[in-house]
């Protein structure tokens, strides 16, 4: 029994959808579904939720790398079988949550998680990611698996989280801080509303592989893909191809997405931009976009020191200076962006002034500035 390549349509099952979440809910969750009254963070990474029926569920949240082997998942299953009756869940930010229905089960679970380390020495299950602190970085594939990446993802995230590690496990920030990484402008992980966004960017216009382009690409689609109209059809050495007006190119990479014969990535040209001050909760202030405050830093594997340094500078200036409940973007808006650059020491250059579609809405049209 199994797939029969000589008769691929035999017994084919399609459109069954995902498994029903109701099969996977732990009994204490099932019993109290929709009846939760309140929650409390008992310590970093440990939550209790209390239901109207008086029942409690205790959650231990631990960080994880988004890239995960089945060996590691099996270890998670072993832990869940031992302590949590065979149930476990993940969060939207790549954390893992182990839940127990009795406070007495918490300590053995936490001790079990703490002692587990990878062969290289890193922790398998660091506890934290709750409250006014740092949680896990959501990110994309990077060089490990993607063809459009301008930087790596998992490696940069590891480098940043190692440096900020202590703040994953404590809650001393003015408010939540959400860091996200997208390894190119396609942002398959949308990072444009993050407190701190790490974004892979290119700085060189695409090369044109004239010899193969006509075979690989639909030329009209490549031309239409360009948002600034920088691409036109051209015949080069008798072959149908395209020409790029380098002056008009903003290196978005949309042409490469449509046409493999127009690669952009480059050792020197590609790297990282940093955006800050975005949020998507409606709490106090409305959701906001992140703004570019570092236009470019080079790719520096394996530890991206300049990127890590810039993030630390921004983050810890905010942590010292902001008021309680103030998100990074609220803080920057209150003190003014001229102060933001002064306090963080980040250089302000013309690259940070918008010149795309809604540019004018970001220029100062008043005399209300600070010296």
């Amino acid at each position, binding site marked *: 029994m199994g797939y029969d390549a000589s008769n691929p349509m035999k017994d084919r099952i399609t459109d069954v959808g995902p498994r029903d979440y109701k099969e996977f809910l732990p009994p204490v969750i099932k019993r109290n579904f929709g009846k939760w009254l309140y929650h*409390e963070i008992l310590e970093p990474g440990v939550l209790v939720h209390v239901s109207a029926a008086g029942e409690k569920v205790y959650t231990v949240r631990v960080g994880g790398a988004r*890239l995960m*082997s089945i060996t590691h998942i099996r270890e998670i299953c072993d832990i869940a079988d031992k302590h949590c009756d065979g149930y476990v869940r993940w969060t939207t930010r790549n954390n893992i949550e182990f839940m127990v229905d009795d406070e007495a089960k918490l300590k053995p679970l936490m001790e079990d998680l703490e002692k587990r380390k990878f062969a290289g020495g890193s922790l398998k299950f660091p506890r934290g990611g709750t409250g006014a602190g740092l949680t896990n970085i959501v990110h994309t594939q990077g060089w490990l698996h*993607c063809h459009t990446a301008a930087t790596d993802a998992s490696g940069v995230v590891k480098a940043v989280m190692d440096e900020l590690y202590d703040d994953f496990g404590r809650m001393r920030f003015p408010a939540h801080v959400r860091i996200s990484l997208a390894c190119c402008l396609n942002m398959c992980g949308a990072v444009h509303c993050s407190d701190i966004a790490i974004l892979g960017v290119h700085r060189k216009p695409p090369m044109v592989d004239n010899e193969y382009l006509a075979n690989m690409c639909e030329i009209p689609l490549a031309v239409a893909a360009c948002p600034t109209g920088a691409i036109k059809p051209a015949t080069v050495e008798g072959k149908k191809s395209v020409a790029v007006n380098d002056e008009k190119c903003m290196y978005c990479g949309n042409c490469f997405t449509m046409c493999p014969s127009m690669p952009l990535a480059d050792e020197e040209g590609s790297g990282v931009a940093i955006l800050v001050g975005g949020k998507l909760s409606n709490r106090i202030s409305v959701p906001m976009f992140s703004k570019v405050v570092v236009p470019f830093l080079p790719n520096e594997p394996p530890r991206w020191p300049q990127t890590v340094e810039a993030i630390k500078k921004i983050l810890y200036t905010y942590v010292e200076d902001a008021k309680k409940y103030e998100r990074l973007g609220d803080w920057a808006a209150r003190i003014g962006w001229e102060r933001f650059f002064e306090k963080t020491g980040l250089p302000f250059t013309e690259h940070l002034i918008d010149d795309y579609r809604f540019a004018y809405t970001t220029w100062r049209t008043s005399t209300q500035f600070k010296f």
Partner: protein
Amino acid sequence: MAKRKTPMLDELENGKWPSFISDIKQEAEAREKTNVDLQAPKEVCNDLLDILELSYKDREGHWKHGGVAGVFGYGGGVIGRYCDQPEQFPAAKDFHTLRVNQPSSYFYKTEYLRQLCELWERRGSGLTNMHGSTGDIILLGTTTPQLEEVFWELTHNLKQDLGGSGSVLRSPNCCIGKARCEFACYDTQQACRALTMEYQDELHRPAFPYKFKFKFDGCPNGCVASIARADMSVIGTWRDDIRIDQKAVQAYVGGEFKPDAGAHAGRDWGPFDIEKEVIDLCPTHCMAWNGEKLGINNRECNRCMHCINTMPRALRIGEDTGASILFGAKAPILEGAQLGTLTIPFMKIEEPYDELKGLIEKVWDWWSEEGRNRERLGELIQRMGFAKFLEVCEIKADPRMIREPRSNPYIFWKETDVPGGWERDIKDFRKKHQK
């Protein structure tokens, strides 16, 4: 054991944060030792590490652009991926990905996860993402002949389908909802599942101009980030009064309960000050505290959640709950990033979700008709105008939909709006006005 040295990757085994390099290495080692009849190359993890080391050295990726891969009858769910140095890294030269549609809010039984691990050990690289950005379980890396085998086993043995990729409805996603959150204004998990099941055809067979995402947030805190990244965001809200337990309010003021559910416990912020921390921070200034009693002018409340987040034991969401529906959020490619635009201030979100489905289908009809290739809904709305979008949705304009009215007077009137219409005779004009 890696075939070649990976000094840069090895550096990423140091430090406290879980090392994905150590994890890949442990999988490589497990593949060395296993008795399982591996169907994908045994060396795949080692070759993957070597590819990544080379990328670190070159500071450029080493994957080819695209490549066709898939399963019969579906246009999505599989991402073809080929290494651009296949001779150097034969075990990872084909490294295709399958997206497996996740269950609502990522709860699992270990029994299911173990089945999935067994399948992926035998027929893939043994590497996954838990989870991808859209929400799917990502099975990372296998060869072309394994794709149908994996799909067969997924559907037959795990009763589990693939997720979306390409110009389809992407796997819908939701927050934890009523399963473990007191703020959930509707059952996000069930809404997510019901719509996923309703639109299986749209999810698996590309028929749209581009991708389309549904995301379900249970409240305005927005834990699944729908407002920033979903073409349709369903965000829980309520239209009656915040429920107040005055005794519990006093317990917060008296320092008996930890404010913000203990979220600020890592620093000494001084004693809780309800005036400074709640009343003054309320964006609509609709709250008052007289030393004994908390008052909320609910009509003026915009449900930002701050007071409820800060005093969860004292304040609860209202009882007449439903959702606000916003359309058009997306990342920057191509015309710039957009947040969702509030289109339906309030809708009841209850099974069988007919009202919601009716709305979705109107929007899809219009977008399929008018949308250009690779034009997200948000961009189409910008190009055609929000007023046109309201007409498509058959809803009336409402000041709740805008931040402020237009400041330019370039109003597009319809001919039927203007008495007498637009047909006029220049001769009649000339009778009154000489040339």
